[in-house]
């Protein structure tokens, strides 16, 4: 295995509220190799976005990283000073947020939103940065004259392209994509994903792709991790996770997607509701919704076990 670009070890993120402490990310360890696309899937509230935010320490109170370490290229992100952190952000890791509609400031031109990040990190003038910004817009297929436009003058797809251009501005080695195409229609989604792939070929960055759309992920990710109630319950190469999942939750997730081909079947859903993070049961978090629940599941937490080379799942049945 190649040297990891990003290594997360036993990371725990807690939300502290008056009703108690909710652990949104529990003991998660994972690595991302250079040039690799890692997908993180899971339902709403499973902690996947919290995990993504924690990587550049963007989580806000009441969220709190209580344990673990995040090693990027040998440096511990959690030990960086404010200045080091500012330099680290975007230079090394950039983020494409959930909805492009909201991640561009409505009263600042896209040109300024592109150039300011360049100027903040490089010793160049706004004028030079503007040239670079024009180039970046060209890369994502938007005419350079659009620099003077405000976000409301662009369509949804164009806005997401602008956001991707901003993410590429400093040629980071890792781009975190938090459901980057959720707000777009399927045609635009397809276009953007294709472009993203070309860009990845060209620049060679790694992607941490966060989505609830497993089928999309099966297509673009090299490896997939599945999270449930803050735990990473299965992680391995995309093909296997998608075609031969080991964990009952992953099986349920994949079975909840309709297939276009073949006879019509009644869709399978996962019974029950996600667990309340404030009142976790002892033992496996998935026990109430699991068809194969055993006695041991109610007593002990299942640990991630290695099923194959680079393939892990956490279930007592395995």
């Amino acid at each position: 295995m190649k040297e990891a670009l990003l290594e997360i070890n036993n990371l725990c993120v807690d939300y502290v509220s008056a009703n108690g402490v909710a652990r949104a990310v529990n003991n998660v360890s994972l690595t991302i190799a250079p040039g690799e696309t890692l997908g993180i899937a899971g339902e709403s509230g499973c902690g996947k976005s919290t995990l993504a935010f924690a990587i550049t320490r963007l989580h806000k109170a009441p969220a709190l990283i209580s344990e673990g370490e995040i090693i990027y290229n040998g440096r511990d992100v959690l030990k960086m000073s404010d200045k080091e952190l500012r330099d680290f952000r975007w230079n090394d890791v950039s983020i494409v947020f959930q909805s492009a509609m909201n991640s561009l400031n409505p009263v600042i031109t896209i040109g300024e939103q592109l150039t300011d990040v360049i100027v903040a990190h490089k010793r160049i003038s706004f004028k030079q940065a503007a040239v670079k910004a024009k180039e970046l817009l060209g890369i994502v297929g938007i005419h350079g004259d659009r620099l003077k436009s405000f976000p409301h003058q662009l369509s949804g797809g164009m806005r997401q392209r602008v956001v991707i251009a901003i993410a590429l501005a400093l040629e980071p080695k890792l781009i975190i994509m938090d459901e980057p195409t959720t707000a777009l229609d399927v045609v635009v989604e397809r276009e953007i994903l294709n472009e993203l792939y070309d860009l990845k070929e060209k620049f060679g960055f790694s992607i941490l792709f966060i989505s609830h759309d497993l089928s999309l992920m099966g297509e673009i990710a090299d490896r997939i991790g599945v999270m449930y109630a803050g735990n990473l319950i299965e992680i391995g190469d995309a093909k296997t996770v998608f075609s031969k999942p080991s964990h009952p939750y992953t099986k349920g997730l994949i079975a909840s997607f309709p297939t276009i081909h073949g006879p019509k079947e009644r869709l399978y859903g996962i019974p029950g509701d996600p667990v309340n993070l404030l009142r976790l049961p002892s033992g496996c978090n998935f026990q109430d919704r699991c068809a194969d629940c055993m006695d041991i599941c109610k007593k002990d937490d299942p640990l991630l076990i290695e099923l194959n080379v680079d393939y892990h799942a956490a279930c007592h049945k395995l």
Partner: protein
Amino acid sequence: MSFLLRRLSFYFTAFLIAISFNFMLPRMMPGDPIDALFAAAQGKMDPAQMDAVREMYGFVDGNVFEQYLSYMQSVFTLDLGPSVLMFPIDVTTVVGMSLPWTMFLALGSLIVALILGVTIGTYSSYRREGFFGQFVPPFLAFISNFPYIVTALLLFYFFGLQLELLPLAYTYDPAIDPGFTLEFIGSVAKHAVLPMGSMILVGIATWVFNMRNAMINVLGEDYVTMAEAKGLSSYRVMYRYAGRNAILPVATAIAMAIGFSFAGSIMTEVVFNYQGLGNILLKGIMARDYPLIQAILLILVSAVLTANFVADLLYVWLDPRISK
């Protein structure tokens, strides 16, 4: 451009309605200034003399409608006739002398309160867990919840009467000749500290809280998180990305505040005997000096509408989404 025209026609209509009220209001009050003059003369005037005086002040010729027309004419030609109170000085001259002081007081205090309030509001919301964010806004709320008159009189008492640090009355020392001299400007500044300070003290909390609330909403937006993720300086995130948006609702509030500031300056001028419009207005009302009252109301209406228009333009400049 069509936006500008729309706003302009709106303000012109508002102006016409306001000056019509201006015409009606004093006429709804009982008595007229000549009666007051007659009462003051204690019967030493004969009716013929009174009629002459009436005519001179433009009160008799024709019915209300004709009076209205001549009033409108005088408004648009700025020929508002002589003052009853300070006869034979022209109303326009009287107003012209005191208007700059009121503008100075009302707009000056508004601008200072606005700048301070917005800055404090921005900072206290961005650092709302810290000492500044926890302590300063509630303290300002406490201060501004005193009735204005209490704050003004307390300042008046401590700084003017007890400590004798600051002058108690007038816009500048009457012994100094007005002009562009250091001495004169110093005197004006010294005389403005208490009246302006009291208005700022009372007004600032509004802006702090307006800005703070708007900021807290904006700080939850994705584009602020993205600005942080971009590794921009916290100064830039705070003012350019969050503050720039949070100021939009505040800019709307400015338009309303301008009117209140002018109204507030009337009380201030009376307390500190500041020689502005408010002071003259009070005297005019006591003397039933209709031409003077109308001129002052006219000026106040114009000033408020103009300021509102400026606030509108400011809003267009601040929010590029509006201008269509």
